[in-house]
């Protein structure tokens, strides 16, 4: 409860009205602009000028100046007064008679005409259907039983326009448009005086208690109902607002939007029409009259007049907010939307929403707060500034004045409750996240992002890295110390990177890897740095940190070079020669790098191939003399070497051969000889020294791969020759020879072989070879026969075509031109185009050359 919506301000004091005459009472009042008219029970009308002024203390006060008082000469009380300012008339009810007097001098106008007799009560239609500004419509309850009359009041006369009868005696009336709202003796009703249609509202015993009928707006009335209720009813006879709850002794009611003010024996009560709640109670004794005039609520006791001055809306709202009654404040503000110019309202409304948001924020009602901040378009920095140290020191922000809330900062708000602080921080995180990419953050993106970064860092929030890795406006100068404080070095590095300070980032990260700084964000920070360097376009940086990376782990470190994308663009290009030279110190790294060049990237450069081969060889040689436990390693190393020697054609064979001269690396030597096409030497080594016949066979296959058949045959024959070499006879060689023949029958020239073989070999022994050779020969023969047949057939076809195209004779004469060059024929030689058109031989040749479809065009024919 208790909004201060109104202030009671005295307007006309007792002595100004009646002095000390005890029996004089105020009967009615009328207020029109600054003019106040008071009717008394001794038949006087008093006319005051009411001036508003502000006291030195800033309070509103009224000073009343008495202009005139006039005795109506009837010794009866003045019952009602209504001003018609457009007519400059005052309508007076006294002694059951309505008279019209001049507003200024209070003199009755034109004696007879302007008078209505037999009137109980009357009302003015504030919303008349007729648009005539120079007359006033009155609803009159006539003393005649059960009748209501409608009069028009003109400057100097009155005119009866309508008379309607009512089911019961009316005792109070109100008029809006054609609608009469009447209090009858047992009920209220609506009566359309134009159509005569009526609508019962609800029962009310007017005899027992004085009814109240009050127009509150277009076609809506406020009525006193049983049980001290204030009921709202429309002209249609429905209620659209819940009733307000007055006391049983209510005397009068007035409306001053959004409030309904009521007067009873001891109090003035103020209810809101927006939520029907009681908002304010003022104690007031001897209350007699409560009426509103053009929004001004005037209150009178029997002896004095007061004005209920509404407090400025904003003040009321601020009071509500101060009482943390957010919803009521907003309702009040919202209710006033139409009464305030749009832009002014928006500013006010926004501010109230923001304040409401902060109140709810203070109560940790974050959802509601957020909604109000959003609707109120809060400058987020207002919120951020509550959190100590979050706003960058460079921020130009200053809090709004007057302040939107009562909190100095978060600690003040939380009163040391750490859990509260924590919850507030989480809220801010979620809030900033939401707004940072919206227009809310326009103009203060740095502040928002920096604050968010700080919160993330402090809360150890995983999104810190996402924030830094994506587009952001975090201020480096302000964020760096904060991140350091919270040991977020990796994140700080990212921030440096974002600000193109890669060197600073690397320096920091290196220190973390080295253990000088503690930050466990990434356990693979070293690999991360290597990866970073492998992409880094700044070669100076690469060289600067390569050494550190390689010293730490060559295998990983070398990825700086091997992972680097090969680009033609000069900026990020590393010359392999430079790299190799640099890597010479790093045994492991250089192998990996060379392998990268030769095997992965297949760089065709003798230097690299030779270098890699030599490196491989050295490795093998280095391993060889060692203990047998390394066999596995040796095998692997040799395989690498062998593969390279076999696959590559670029390395310097002679150089390697020299190196291998006195070693046991026979296979390698054989391979090298093979590269030099010294197959006899190679095979000799394999057969006689290595004594590995399958390998020898394999050698033949390898060395002749991608060569023609003759070459292959030559090699196999060579191998056979080595086996059969009489210089070094032996059973095993014989067996090898037999196996070779039997297995690779197709590789040999059988007749030649048969001539070579010793006489004594059994046929049985060579059966596979012989049958294979025979089958091969047969196959070859038949294949060629088939080919011959096919060729013959094709030839026949061609002949047929030729005969077909030749057709009849082709005539060539000097008169007839060539179709292609349009010159005449001078010789009988010509070419016929399809369709028998003769052209010059050279023209046809020319055309055939130009045309992609050569074959069709030429169809030479010798002619007579």
């Amino acid at each position, binding site marked *: 409860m208790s909004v201060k919506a109104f202030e009671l301000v005295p307007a006309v004091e007792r002595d100004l009205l009646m002095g000390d005459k005890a029996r004089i009472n105020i009967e009615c009042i009328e207020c*029109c602009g600054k003019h106040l008219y008071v009717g008394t029970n001794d038949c006087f009308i008093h006319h005051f000028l009411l001036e508003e002024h502000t006291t030195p203390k800033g309070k509103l006060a009224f000073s009343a100046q008495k202009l005139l008082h006039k005795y109506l000469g009837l010794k009866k009380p003045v019952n009602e007064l209504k*001003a*018609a*300012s*457009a007519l400059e008339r005052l309508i007076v009810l006294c002694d059951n008679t309505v008279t019209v007097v001049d507003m200024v001098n209070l003199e009755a106008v034109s004696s007879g005409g302007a008078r209505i007799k037999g009137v109980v009560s009357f009302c*003015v239609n*504030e*919303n008349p259907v007729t*648009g005539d*500004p120079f007359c*006033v419509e009155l609803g009159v309850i006539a003393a005649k039983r059960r009748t209501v009359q409608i009069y028009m009041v003109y400057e100097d006369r009155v005119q009866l326009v309508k008379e309607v009868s009512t089911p019961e005696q009316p005792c109070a009336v109100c008029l809006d448009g054609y609608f009469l709202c009447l209090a009858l003796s047992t*009920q209220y009703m609506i009566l359309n005086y134009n159509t005569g249609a009526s609508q*019962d*509202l*609800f*029962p009310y015993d007017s005899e027992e208690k004085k009814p109240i009928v009050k*127009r*509150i*707006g*277009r*076609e*809506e009335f406020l009525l006193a*109902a*049983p*049980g001290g*209720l204030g*009921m709202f009813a*429309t*002209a*249609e*006879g*429905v*209620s*659209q*607002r*819940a*009733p*307000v*709850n007055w006391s049983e002794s209510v005397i009068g009611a007035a*409306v001053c*939007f959004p409030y309904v003010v009521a007067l009873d024996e001891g109090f003035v009560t103020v*209810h809101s029409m927006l*939520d*029907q709640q*009681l908002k304010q109670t003022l104690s007031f004794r001897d209350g007699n009259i409560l009426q*509103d*005039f*053009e929004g001004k609520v005037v209150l009178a006791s029997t002896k004095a007049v007061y004005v209920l001055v509404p407090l400025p809306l904003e003040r009321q709202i601020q009071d509500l907010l101060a009482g943390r009654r*957010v*919803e*009521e404040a*907003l*309702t009040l503000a*919202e*209710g006033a939307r*139409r*009464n305030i110019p749009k832009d002014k309202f928006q500013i006010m409304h926004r501010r109230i929403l923001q304040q409401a948001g902060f109140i709810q924020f203070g109560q940790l*009602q974050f*959802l*509601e707060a957020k909604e109000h901040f959003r609707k109120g378009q809060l400058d987020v920095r207002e919120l951020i500034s509550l959190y100590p140290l979050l706003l960058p020191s460079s921020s130009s922000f200053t809090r709004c004045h007057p302040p939107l809330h009562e909190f100095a900062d978060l600690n003040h708000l939380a009163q040391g409750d750490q859990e509260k602080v924590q919850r507030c921080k989480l809220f801010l995180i979620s809030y900033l996240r939401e707004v940072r990419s919206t227009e809310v953050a326009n103009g203060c993106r740095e502040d928002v992002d920096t604050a968010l970064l700080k919160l993330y860092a402090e809360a150890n929030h995983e999104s810190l890295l996402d924030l830094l890795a994506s587009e952001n406006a975090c201020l480096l100068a302000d964020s760096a110390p904060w991140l350091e404080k919270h040991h977020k070095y990796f994140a700080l590095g990212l921030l440096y990177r974002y600000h193109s300070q890669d060197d600073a980032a690397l320096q920091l990260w290196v220190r973390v890897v080295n253990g000088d700084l503690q930050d466990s964000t990434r356990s693979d920070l070293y690999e991360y740095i290597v990866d970073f360097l492998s992409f880094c376009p700044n070669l100076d940086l690469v060289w600067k940190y390569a050494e550190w990376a390689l010293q730490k782990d060559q295998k990983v470190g070398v990825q700086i070079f091997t992972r680097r994308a090969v680009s033609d663009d000069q900026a990020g290009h590393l010359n392999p020669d430079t790299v190799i030279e640099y890597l010479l110190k790093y045994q492991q790294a250089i192998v990996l790098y060379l392998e990268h060049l030769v095997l992965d990237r297949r760089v065709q450069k003798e230097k690299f191939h030779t270098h890699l081969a030599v490196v491989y060889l050295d490795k093998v040689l280095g391993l060889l003399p060692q203990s047998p436990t390394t066999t596995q390693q040796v095998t692997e190393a040799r395989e690498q070497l062998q593969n390279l020697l076999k696959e590559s054609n670029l390395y310097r064979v002679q150089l390697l051969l020299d190196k291998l001269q006195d070693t046991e690396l026979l296979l390698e030597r054989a391979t090298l000889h093979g590269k030099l096409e010294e197959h006899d030497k190679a095979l000799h080594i394999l057969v006689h020294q290595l004594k590995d016949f399958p390998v020898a066979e394999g050698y033949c296959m390898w060395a002749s791969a991608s060569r023609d058949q003759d070459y292959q045959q030559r090699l196999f024959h060579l191998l056979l020759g080595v086996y059969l070499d009489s210089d070094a006879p032996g059973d095993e060689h014989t067996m090898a020879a037999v196996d070779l023949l039997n297995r690779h029958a197709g590789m040999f020239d059988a007749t030649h072989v048969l001539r070579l073989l010793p006489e004594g070999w059994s046929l049985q022994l060579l059966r596979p070879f012989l049958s294979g050779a025979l089958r091969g020969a047969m196959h070859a023969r038949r294949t060629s026969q088939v080919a011959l047949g096919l060729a013959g057939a094709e030839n026949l076809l061609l002949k047929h075509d030729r005969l077909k195209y030749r057709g009849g004779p082709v005539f060539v004469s000097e008169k007839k031109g060539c179709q292609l060059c349009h010159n005449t024929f001078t010789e009988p030689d010509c070419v016929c185009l399809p369709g028998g058109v003769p052209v010059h031989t050279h023209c046809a040749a020319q055309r055939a050359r130009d045309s992609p479809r050569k074959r069709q065009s030429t169809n030479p024919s010798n002619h007579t």
Partner: protein
Amino acid sequence: MKGKFDIDVLVASPSTITNRRVQRAMPDYAKMKKPDVKLVVLGDLNVGKTSLLHRYTERKFKDTISTVGGAFFLKQWGPYNISIWDTAGREQFHGLGSLYCRGAAAVILTYDVTNWQSLAELEDRFLYLTDTANSDCIFAIVGNKADLTDPRALVAEPEEEEGGDEKEGVPWANPSPTAPPMFRKQVFREDAVALYSRILRYKLLDEAASMPAERMCFETSAKTGYNVDLLFETLFDMVLPSILRKKSQNESPTVDLEECLEVNRTKDGCCT
């Protein structure tokens, strides 16, 4: 919660509810919205009209005091605003009933299943108040406080938060020792169904063309929430045609609530 739409607004007469919580989630300014259709809850005092509305709109059963005058709630139902009027059962406010019922699309006649008189009053005192309702007004007869007589009604609606501090939600097959004592059921479903037929006759409505009694007689418990959503949602769905018709005719010259600003007009009409 079960309802498809959240309650938007709560407007209540100040005295209806003692400890009215002022802080509702998001105040929406729908307060100014004009309702599309009206439902009125009628019934003798103390039958639980206000409690039913609390249960439906706030998902709670809480203390009430006897309603003074009346109050209404605005419910957003799809694109429509439905106003639900809670009336006072007290004799004193009885006369206001017609005003509340004027133009109503549905009337919920509420009685207390443990109180025969409360059903009788519906026919004697309340039925004629509905004369002002729409000609096609739908009537529902609701026996509240079913929890007192029917073990089934003790089972709280599953999705609801617990309102009272009693041990509720006990399956009826296995009533817990702390279950409240049962009252004698004074009004049975058949009685309500019979009343429903009499209402149709009173309204001169053809029984065959009207909603069948089985669908329009409910037994509810505001305390446990038993059948409460069912009641309101059934009615909302039934009044939709009425809303649509009203919209299409678009003839209703209903006054905009905001028109009360008019009050600031000068008394001389157009001249200032």
